[in-house]
């Protein structure tokens, strides 16, 4: 089996998920300069809601595909409401506060959501229902599954849809205008509160989708899973240039591939001293390197000293 090709495929799959989550960070940052550190928890809630809804429906005898769709819809709706509520309750009252305040609030909300999830779903690892049949494909010595294909295809389509929304619709234009000059945008009649809510709601819907993908891929979920995923997606957004949509997409895929290659070769590189379970270090090495040498990321504009 060709390790290189195999790891590229694995990285592409993982990277698609990072990209979807990174978009949530970058949309909110682009419009209001806030890093919503609770976004990883929104993804986690999406996964857990799907487990509950799809799992229950399968148990009562609903066809798996239908139950999966119901679970996905429920996750998307719950996460959209959650994103909207987060902004209304936690961030809007701090709109004119110093930059550090909403950042600390975001970390606080992340802790609150983790604990709520722990109370609702418990401390144990939960099994994600099998939503897709286990089919394996072989290609040039590498193998991949139907689930992996589904993740890459659905992410790609979703991101194309998002680009259409942002660059071809009136709402998208209002979002871009607000990101560039909120005061003048409001003089044009744009209600900035609505635009900010839209960024949270759309970002959360993408997060929910990512949550379902993570669940389908790893078949396991936990109330703390959003933390590491969120941190890595944040890294991906920074790598691409936070605030930049294409940057989040490319940064996500790139980070996934870097991680997968790192995990694939770290054993050989260190003479077996470190194993593939050290793959997490690669994301943070990337984060540190980007912050040291190109803090604006691959595609980002100079952003000044935003917290």
């Amino acid at each position, binding site marked *: 089996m060709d390790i290189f090709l195999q790891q590229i495929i694995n990285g592409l799959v993982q990277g698609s998920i990072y990209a979807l989550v990174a978009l949530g960070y970058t949309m909110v940052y682009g419009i209001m300069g806030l890093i919503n550190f609770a976004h990883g928890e929104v993804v986690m809630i999406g996964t857990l809601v799907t487990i509950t809804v799809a799992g229950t429906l399968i148990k009562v005898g609903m066809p798996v595909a239908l139950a999966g769709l119901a679970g996905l819809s429920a996750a998307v709706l719950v996460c959209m409401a959650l994103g909207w509520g987060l902004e209304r309750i936690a961030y809007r009252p701090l709109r004119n506060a110093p930059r550090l305040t909403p950042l600390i609030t975001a970390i606080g909300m992340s802790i609150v959501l983790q604990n709520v999830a722990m109370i609702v779903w418990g401390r144990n690892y939960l099994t994600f229902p099998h939503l897709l049949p286990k089919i394996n494909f072989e290609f040039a010595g590498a193998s991949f599954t139907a689930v992996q294909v589904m993740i890459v295809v659905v992410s790609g389509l979703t991101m194309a849809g998002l680009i259409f929304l942002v660059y071809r619709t009136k709402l998208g234009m209002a979002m*871009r205008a607000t990101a560039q000059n909120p005061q*003048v945008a409001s*003089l044009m*009649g744009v209600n900035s509160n609505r635009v900010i809510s839209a960024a949270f709601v759309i970002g959360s819907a993408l997060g929910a989708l990512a949550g379902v993908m993570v669940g389908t891929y790893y078949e396991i979920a936990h109330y703390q899973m959003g933390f590491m995923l969120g941190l890595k997606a944040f890294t991906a957004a920074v790598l691409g240039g936070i605030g930049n949509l294409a940057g989040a997409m490319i940064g996500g895929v790139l980070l996934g591939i870097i991680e997968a290659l790192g995990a694939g070769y770290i054993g050989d590189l260190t003479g077996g001293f470190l194993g593939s379970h050290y793959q997490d270090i690669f994301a943070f090495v990337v984060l540190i390197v980007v912050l040291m040498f190109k803090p604006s990321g691959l595609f980002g504009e100079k952003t000044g000293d935003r917290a």
Partner: protein
Amino acid sequence: MLEVTGLRVAYGGIQAVRSITFHVNEGEMVALIGANGAGKTSTLKAISRVLDAAGGDVHFCGEKITRIPSHDIIRKGIALVPEGRGVFPRLTVAENLAMGAFVRSDAVDVEKDLKMVYGYFPRLKERETQLAGTLSGGEQQMLAIGRALMSRPRLLLLDEPSMGLAPIMVQKIFEVIRLVAAQGMTILLIEQNAKLALETSQRGYVMESGEITLNGDAKDLLNDPKVRAAYLGE
């Protein structure tokens, strides 16, 4: 049409505008002149609700607009060309103009107004697909004025349209402002270039340290010895 009564604006404890009263009648062009820091821009910001007034009232067409949100100002028919132009740098010229028509749903008339704006400023038509941030200062000013016209306003507020522009560009911009005024548009013009502003307008107000100290016909103000001494460099 626009009535400002006892308007006050304060930043923290500092009063930028101290109880000013003035009005603009339908179809006329009024200049508000004064030195840098006299409170002219603060006045416009308070009218357009970007800033909260500390006191006083603003009525537009008989309706009190002192407390409505700034994103509803344009729906009342007031368009502001902000100081420093405020174009959206990473939107194209066409998108900037479309933002001007953001609140309108009459697509056919919007298309007509777009043709009109491109008629006023053929340069904008040439640069339609270019990002606004890549335009020269004068072109950005054209864009800011065109964008304001795209909302088909009843009152146009112009904040320092000549600022930072080459004399030839100032001429071009003011040619269009005169054309727009000749079509019957009501305009409140804020300018540091007092001569140009008073020559273009019918009436004028002179603002000093947050207060209106003189007002009258633009021609009379142009000949007023105090105005000549303070603002026309004589």
